[in-house]
C-alpha cells in the first residue's frame, strides 16, 4: 500500500510541493534521516501531514526531495 501525503508549498521561494511516499526499501545511495534529526517545525509538519493528510506549507522545513525519513515507517520525500 502506498501512502501519499501532499505538503503544499504555497509560498516557498522554490515554490515546490512535496509528497511523502511510504517505502519498504532504501537505496544504498539514498540520504536517510531519523525523525529525531528534524527541527521542531519540520517535525510538526511531518506529523501533521501523516496524521491528518491535510495540506501544509513546506515553507521553512528542511526537507529535501529524495531524502528518506525514518519514522514508524520509512517515508521518501518527493517533489510533486
Amino acid at each position, binding site marked *: 500500500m502506498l501512502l501519499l501525503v501532499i505538503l503544499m508549498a504555497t509560498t516557498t521561494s522554490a515554490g515546490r510541493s512535496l509528497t511523502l511516499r511510504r517505502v519498504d526499501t*532504501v537505496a544504498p545511495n539514498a*540520504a*536517510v534521516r*531519523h525523525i*529525531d534529526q528534524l527541527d521542531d517545525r519540520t*517535525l510538526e509538519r511531518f*506529523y501533521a501531514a501523516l496524521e491528518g493528510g491535510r495540506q501544509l506549507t513546506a515553507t521553512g522545513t528542511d526537507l529535501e526531495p529524495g531524502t528518506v525519513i525514518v*519514522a514508524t515507517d520509512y517515508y521518501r520525500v518527493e517533489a510533486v
Partner: protein
Amino acid sequence: MTEYVIIGDGISGSSAAETLREEDPESSITVITDEGEALYNRILIKEHAKGKLPEAPISIHEEDWYAERDIELSLNTHVTGVDTDEKVVHTHEGDEIGYDKLLIATGGTPTQLPVDDSDAEGIHHFWTFQDARKIRESAEAAEKGVIVGAGLLGIDFAAVCGAQGVEGKYLMRGDRWWRYALSSEGAEIMHEGMREVGVEPVFDSGVDRFETDDGQVVAAIDPDGERHECDFAGVAIGLTFNTEYLGDIDLEQDNGIVVDQYMQTNLEDVYAAGDITRFYDVLLGEQAQNGSWGSAKEQGRIAGVNMAADDEAEEFEWVSSYSITHFDFPFLSFGHPTLGDDHAERKYSDTEWRRIAFKDGKVVGGVLIGDLAPQSKLKQLMREQRDVADQKEVLLEETVDLDDLAPPQEQ
C-alpha cells in the same frame, strides 16, 4: 593561531569541529577518535541491526570532509591521558598533542552486567556501528533472545528481535518498561507494541547469571532461578561515561563532566559537550543530563562558538526530544520527563497516552504516545517557562489550545 583539540568524533565533537572551522578559519583543529570510522549516524544504526537499512546511508562524513575543511582527523586513536597544566593530550601510541583549547566529547560506553559470563558470544551491548553489524549478524542467526534493561536503549534490542524474527523475552526489573517516566497505563501501550512484534515482557525479573556452552550464551537465569533459553542477548542497563583517561586531573565531575550553560568546565580552556556533560540547564534551573542526538549536536555547536569567541558568547538552551519508531504508533519523550515535582497524565485510547512533568509550576518534560500533535505546544510552554501546572485540564485536552490557558501573570 589557536590550536583546538577535540576528543571524540561523535555528533557533539564533529559539530564542534564544523563550528570552530566556520568561526575561526585560521585555526588548527584536530579531532581524535578511537573508532575506525569517521562520524556516522548513531541513531540509525538500530535500523541496520534490524536488517532494514544498508550501511552506506548511515555514514555522515567521509574522511574527505575533514581534509576539505583542513581538520586533522585521527582515527583508531585512543586518548590515554590529558595534562591540563602542560596542555597536552596523550595517545595510546605515545604521541603528545598540544592544545590551546580542549573539547571533551567522549560520550559513554554501555555498562556490562555485573554477572558471570556477561561477555559470552551472543551477548551484545549497543553503541557503535561495529556493535550494530555484529548484532545484525547474530540476530539473523538466532532463534531466541533475551533483553535486559527497561529503558530507551533496551527497547531497540526488542525491535531488533522483532524485525529479525527472534522470539524475545524482555526481562524487566520492575512491573513495567521505563518506570521512571511511564505509569502502568502508558507502559502497557509499549508492552502491547512489544508483544505485537513477538517480544514478551517479563516483569520483576532480570538476569542473575548467563549459562554458556563452549563460550556461546545458551540461557539467562533470572533471580528466581527461572531459565530463559537464548542464543542472543541484548544488555542495555545504562551508560558509563568515558572519563577514565582523565585520571586525577582536577576536573569537576558528578556522574558526567560538570559544565555551565556555555559548555565550560571548571578548568580554564577545557570544555565538554554531548552525552558526557552534566550541564546547567537554563530552562530547568539546575544541572541536568541529556542523552539525545539533537542535544549533543547543539552542545557541540555551542562549545565551538564559545571556544572560538574565547568568551561566553552563546548559552545552551534546548528542549531535547527522543523518539521510538519501532511500533505502529509513534512515541516521543521531550525535556526531562523523569524530573519535576508534579505531573499530569491521561490515556485517550489503547494506543494514545500523555504525561507532562512540571517543576515549580512549569513544564519540564513529558512523554507522548500515539498522538504527537501537542508536542510543539508543550515544548513551547517549556521554552517560555510559563506557570501552567494549575491548568492541567487544558494541557490534557485531546487537542491542546494554548489560547485556552489563562494569560501569563505579570511578575
